[in-house]
């Protein structure tokens, strides 16, 4: 086989390649280099010193933030996937073609307004004297603290990810061969069991990738943990801003950022490998 790329394919793939080199690979390499620089008198200077790596990795504050961020992002991926699935299933399997198109349109609408605006308006709902607590108080419940804690952060993550996760799940469920569902019913597999035994395994790749998106978006998000989670204790993205603000420590922020990138790459790789794993030899 001829493996040399043709001029045609090069014409279309070169811009992407150049873009990736200029705006991803080069900055990444620069970030790696930066993490070995040193700061003297609030001035960065090129160097090759592992001091930043040692300093960051030896602090328990960093590791606390790391595992908190990992836990929050994982919880976000799992909870949002679980919340999304019944809706996605209903849209894909129970609605007519017309209603399905409307629902997809409705799910795109949240992306029309800025995420930041949506998060600010959530404060009105979640604060101690907010709309939700007022309503619950009317029922004789609460008040509950829903802001400046993990609940607030996760609610923010859901605002960010839920519509996207439902859309991705709907598209993958739409590709499930309906014959498989009927065949399962025909072999005595009831409705709920068919969802678990046939529909979820059939759509596995898409469902895992939808969850992966929720993880990636939540893991790197700065807005929700700060404005709804209160920012203290910090997540990794909040920690990066804190570090840069205090004494121009860009090299140490680079260490945190590189750790985040490595984590995302590992998780994404593992998730995709799991998503496309086939049965049998």
């Amino acid at each position, binding site marked *: 086989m001829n493996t040399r790329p043709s001029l045609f394919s090069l014409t279309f793939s070169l811009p992407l390649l150049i873009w990736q080199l200029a705006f991803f690979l080069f900055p990444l390499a620069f970030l790696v280099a930066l993490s070995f620089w040193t700061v003297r008198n609030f001035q960065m200077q090129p160097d090759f010193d592992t001091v930043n790596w040692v300093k960051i990795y030896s602090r328990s504050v960093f590791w606390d933030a790391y595992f908190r961020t990992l836990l929050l992002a994982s919880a976000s991926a799992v909870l949002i996937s679980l919340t999304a699935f019944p809706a996605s299933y209903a849209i894909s399997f129970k609605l007519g073609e017309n209603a399905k198109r409307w629902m997809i349109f409705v799910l795109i609408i949240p992306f029309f307004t800025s995420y930041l605006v949506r998060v600010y308006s959530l404060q009105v709902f979640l604060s101690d004297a907010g709309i939700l607590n007022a309503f619950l108080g009317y029922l004789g419940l609460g008040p509950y603290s829903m802001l400046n804690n993990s609940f607030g952060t996760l609610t923010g993550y859901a605002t960010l990810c839920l519509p996207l996760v439902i859309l991705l799940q709907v598209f993958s469920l739409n590709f499930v061969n309906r014959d498989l569902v009927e065949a399962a019913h025909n*072999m*005595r*597999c009831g409705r709920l069991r068919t969802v678990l035994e046939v529909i979820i395994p*059939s759509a596995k790749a898409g469902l895992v990738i939808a969850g992966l998106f929720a993880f990636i978006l939540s893991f790197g998000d700065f807005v929700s943990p700060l404005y709804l989670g209160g920012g203290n204790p910090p997540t990794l993205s909040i920690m990066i801003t804190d570090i840069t603000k205090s004494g121009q420590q860009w090299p140490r922020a680079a260490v945190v950022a590189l750790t985040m990138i490595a984590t995302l790459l590992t998780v994404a790789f593992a998730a995709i490998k799991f998503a496309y794993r086939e049965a*049998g030899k």
Partner: protein
Amino acid sequence: MLDTPIVHFDNVVKKFGSFTAVEKADFQIARGEFLAIMGSSGCGKTTTLRMLAGLEDPTEGNILLDGKKINGKPTWERDTPMVWQSLALFPFLTVQENVEFSLKMRKVPKGERRERARKWLDRLGILEFADRNISQLSGGQRQRVALARSLVTEPKILLLDEPLSALDAHLKVRMQSVLSGLQKDLGITFVYVTHSMSEAFSMADRVVIMSRGKIEQIGTPEEIYREPRNRFVAGFLGSSNVFDGRLKSSGNEVWQIETEHSSFNLKAPSEVQKTDGSPVAFAVSSENMSLATIGTPWAGNSIEATVVGGEFAGASATVFLETDQGQELKVQKGHDELKTVDIRAGQKLLVHWLPEHCHVLPGE
């Protein structure tokens, strides 16, 4: 119990909105019978099968399985396993797990499940692929997995929806013999939906021919081939020429039919009663028609027609002709027999056949 038919369609109607997919289906399927339901796409054959499987509900009428009414029973409460046209094998399970699936749903213990699945894989000659993924199998092997998966519960009836349509010609013939062999060995009822006459006629004990939701004829392949009931069946079999006319005189031996061409003689049918002057349609199989040069003396029925074209591939040749009245005729003959006549397009020839080769269509 044994003398009751395994399946009884009692005046079953299926409508989708205002569209009638199946119109008053009324027939029975005997125990151990291989029944083929045949027709072109959209004729209602698959809907009929799906109603039996419990995947569609009849709008009117009853379906009885083993003498018991099964309308409204969901498919998972019936024992009517089906083989899909797409096979519907689970790509996320191995071959073995696919075959075990319905046993697992029936809560058969793991060890027994495994053993029974392996027995069927072995019987169908695919045991060596037990741990493979479905995507690694060939079309014929997948076919066998689908059969094993449906037969593993040892049902009394198996429904098949065009299972061979995706296979190439050689494999198709091989799977046909696998299927009819299995059906004979197991002695269970097969209901086989197909659009292919060769599949239906080579395997089935009886064939149901459907068109636009209606059953046109039910009978053994031989009955249908020799005695098509109406114009549709005669046309569907693809080798009959149909003539319309009026009964001029009905003797004991010979009927004389007046048509727009001329009058034809045919052997009086024993099972059809008609009064003189009533309309009659009859079919003549294209193999029973011969060609001769104009002017050749001939004692039987004959008609003049112009050659339109021909197909000369294969063991026999098919010549297409048209009469002066515009009726199309088709004549199928061995190459040797056609040597004596000139069959260029535009040539006028004498088409002739014997009275005993005319078959009166009783349904017209």
